[in-house]
């Protein structure tokens, strides 16, 4: 996952002012009844209906097609997986914990074979027992071209899975997954992968009973293992209604609280309207949350000025880094001095402003996000202070043979308000000008931008990019960007520097062998620092997410893993 699908800042300022003007009224006398209701007892209780108001529909609600981090938010209410993310606030939420399995997995000595045992008493919504064969079948489905969209890892990691076409075209299945008995499942991998328990949180690791599989139609009526089952799924995820799954039991699931009786997910709504509704909190909107609509800069300013509203803002950190990417195959970026000069010249304070201000973006000097799970090790190889060091940059340019400055082109997305958008590009342009570097901007429409910058054939020398990992670990963060064997010649390539350094590759392999995640994290942090000195990227900011929730919402849990309020923990009573 390299880009967050929802950009929070594409709102007109006028509309924002109007959108939230309802907030002031919301704390007037009309809300007294709900204040009384929640005032006496703040503990969460079972019952009621939770409303989720979203902009993007929950499309392709099939465990084989969903591309989630940690099993997703809404999907995780229906699909249980071998392991899952710890449902806890902040850094504790970056931990992987058992879900259907009894533990997070037993590795072989070199971490190429992973064995899981299922808990006792696991049932589907129809009361039939969950078997290891169903998990194997669920994973095999995710290889079917009919069910495109899932994450790519298993295809690379499982032995002999490269060309597998799924159980519909190839019913023999994947020999790399074995089920010696109904409760045991064994995975055979190509190479050591200490992160396997983190991958096993994805929805492809959720069981699908073969007899109930309806192929591309499965998403309409999936068979639930989670606390909720699908009552209806209209227009491909536009409106999903979930009700309690009577066969689910807290005895086998210590993660999901499942307080509400019903969960109603309505999407296709305008972001300004979602924020207006959450702030006004009229009627059932008091029991509403959003999982995809952030507060933009102007909305945030308005909310912060209103105490009652400000207390209803959830802050989330999701491991993500926005950066300037260099292609050292393009002159003058082959010269490390030029790259260093740009690293010194960048003014992160203006980039933060372009991204919506200090509440929505933190300056970044490391490529890894500032979270222990990724192995965050603070470093700054080119200390330029908060607002850049143009003098030092000029000096480096002189050493590089450009005493009179130089002219470069910066490629960016024309999507306004996006992390790779024109506002950030302009901020970079202004900062570099002070160091004698003239920046020409090359703005491209979103699809055209992706096609150009992520292809080794057309990749420009300097462009804006962003990266978020599929799970909180250094592996999926550094691997695709700096592992020389992950350079993709004819497809999407994210190793933009086209770095193929044996010492980096070897260290990545060595860390992947480590199954102690915190020991591995330390090594990822050290590797990040080592690569950082080569100035192949200029880390710019780590984004922060602010989202409103309704006034009767209780038990708000926001983990660093997702950065979003966890729907499985929320109560409305």
């Amino acid at each position, binding site marked *: 996952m390299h880009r967050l699908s929802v950009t929070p800042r594409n709102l007109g300022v006028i509309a924002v002012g*109007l*959108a939230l003007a309802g907030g002031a009224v919301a704390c007037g006398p009309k809300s007294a009844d709900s204040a009384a209701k929640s005032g006496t007892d703040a503990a969460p209780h079972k019952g009621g209906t939770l409303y989720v108001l979203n902009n993007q529909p929950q499309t392709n609600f099939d465990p084989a097609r969903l591309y989630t981090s940690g099993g997703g938010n809404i999907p995780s209410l229906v699909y249980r997986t071998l392991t899952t993310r710890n449902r806890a606030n902040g850094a504790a939420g970056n931990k992987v914990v058992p879900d259907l399995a009894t533990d997070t997995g037993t590795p072989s000595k070199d971490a190429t074979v992973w064995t899981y045992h299922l808990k006792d008493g696991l049932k589907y919504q129809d009361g039939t027992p969950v078997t290891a064969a169903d998990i194997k079948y669920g994973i095999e489905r995710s290889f079917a071209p009919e069910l495109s969209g899932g994450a790519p890892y298993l295809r690379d990691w499982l032995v002999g899975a490269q060309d597998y076409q799924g159980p519909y075209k190839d019913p023999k299945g994947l020999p790399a997954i074995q089920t010696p008995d109904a409760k045991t499942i064994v995975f055979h991998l190509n190479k050591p992968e200490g992160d396997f328990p983190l991958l096993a949180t994805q929805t492809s690791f959720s069981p699908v009973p073969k007899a109930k599989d309806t192929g591309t139609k499965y998403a309409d009526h999936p068979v639930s293992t989670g606390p909720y089952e699908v009552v209806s799924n209209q227009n491909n995820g536009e409106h999903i209604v979930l009700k309690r799954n009577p066969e689910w039991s807290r005895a086998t699931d210590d993660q999901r609280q499942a307080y509400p009786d019903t969960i109603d997910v309505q999407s296709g709504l305008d972001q300004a309207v979602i924020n207006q509704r959450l702030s006004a909190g009229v009627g059932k909107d008091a029991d509403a949350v959003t999982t995809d609509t952030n507060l933009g800069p102007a909305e945030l300013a308005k909310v912060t000025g209103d105490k009652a509203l400000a207390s209803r803002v959830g802050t989330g950190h999701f491991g993500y880094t926005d950066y300037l990417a260099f292609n050292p195959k393009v002159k003058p970026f082959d010269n490390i001095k030029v790259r260093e000069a740009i690293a010194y010249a960048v003014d992160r304070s203006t980039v933060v402003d372009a991204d919506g201000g200090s509440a929505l973006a933190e300056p970044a000097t490391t490529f890894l996000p500032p979270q222990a799970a990724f192995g965050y090790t603070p470093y700054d190889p080119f200390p330029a202070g908060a607002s850049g060091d143009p003098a030092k940059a000029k000096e480096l340019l002189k050493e590089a043979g450009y005493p009179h400055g130089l002219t470069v082109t910066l490629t960016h997305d024309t999507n306004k308000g996006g992390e790779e958008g024109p506002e950030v590009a302009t901020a970079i342009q202004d900062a570099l000008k002070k160091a004698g570097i003239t920046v020409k901007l090359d703005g491209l429409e979103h699809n055209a931008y992706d096609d150009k910058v992520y292809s080794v054939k057309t990749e420009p020398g300097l462009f804006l990019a962003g990266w978020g990992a599929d799970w909180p670990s250094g592996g999926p963060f550094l691997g695709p960007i700096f592992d020389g064997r992950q350079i993709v010649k004819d497809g999407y390539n994210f190793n933009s520097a086209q770095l193929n350094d044996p010492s980096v590759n070897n260290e990545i392999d060595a860390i992947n062998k480590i199954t102690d995640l915190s020991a591995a994290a330390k090594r990822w942090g050290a590797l990040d620092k080592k690569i950082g000195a080569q100035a192949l990227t200029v880390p710019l900011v780590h984004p922060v997410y602010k989202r409103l929730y309704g006034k009767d919402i209780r038990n708000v849990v926001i983990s660093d893993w997702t950065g979003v309020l966890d729907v499985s923990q929320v109560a409305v009573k």
Partner: protein
Amino acid sequence: MIRFAGRRLLQAAVVLLVLAAVLYATFYLAPGNAAQLACGPRCSVAQVHQIRVQMRLDDPVYAQFWHFVQGIFTGHDYSTGTGTLHCPAPCLGQSYRTGDLVTHIIAEKLPATASLALGAMVLWLVLGIGTGLLSALRRGSIVERLLTGFTLIGIATPVFITGILLLLVFCAWLRWLPYPTYVPLTSDPQQWAWNLLLPWVALALVEAAKYARLTRSSMLETLAEDHIRTFRAYGVGEGALVRRHALRGALSPVIALSALDLGTMFGGALLTETLFGVPGLGQQLVQSVQLKDLPVVVGIVLVMGLAVVVANAVADVLYALADRRVVLR
């Protein structure tokens, strides 16, 4: 009349076919790769290839277009993996992204779009023509100036401002109306109208302003024409003059414009749909264009095209009724 209908049908078929062909052609020139988009950016080349084959994207363009045209007349059978999905004629294909039948997607979204478009149109015609006539007949008066001001504001205010304001006033402040959720006409007509009231008004205010200005200028023009002056000289009363003679002439351009506008509305009024949570074709179209989901894009554009063609035919009939000099051929 039969000849008129026949000719129009033939024209419509040709227009729609050309439209589909042009879409197919542009699809291959525009940036983005549907298989890669469906698969995700991290997909391997081999995997993208599997999906291309699944989507028939490896066939030449003309073969794909032929497959599409064939489906309209004979229907197709698609594999769901575990079984087959029959797509009866007229089959417009299957979404690259979700595997849903395009006809099914349109059938699900069209009622919302049609409800929004037709309801808003009734409102904007009544409002627009009413205000237009009033300001034309009360020229120079304070009423006319107020109405002109009102229409100027209407034209100048984008629908997302009007929409947000309406929601704020009626749903958050006064609380007379709930935040709209779409309720199908067939399940509860009263709730249907109640929930669509705000989107109708938001859309109608913008459109009505346009129609008011058109009606006003067209009416003033007609009133200044020779035959009206002659009628007036003969002593025909002002009321009868407007009703019986001027109105017919003045409304011709209004009819032509509403036919076009209605067609556009059937492609979905995107902003109004998102603001008011109406699950219509507009949202679907934008989403599908971004994902390069060609079959869905073609399907929705064909609906739009069909709506324009039908609305134009209706407009021609109305034209003939309004102005007896026009003959339907």
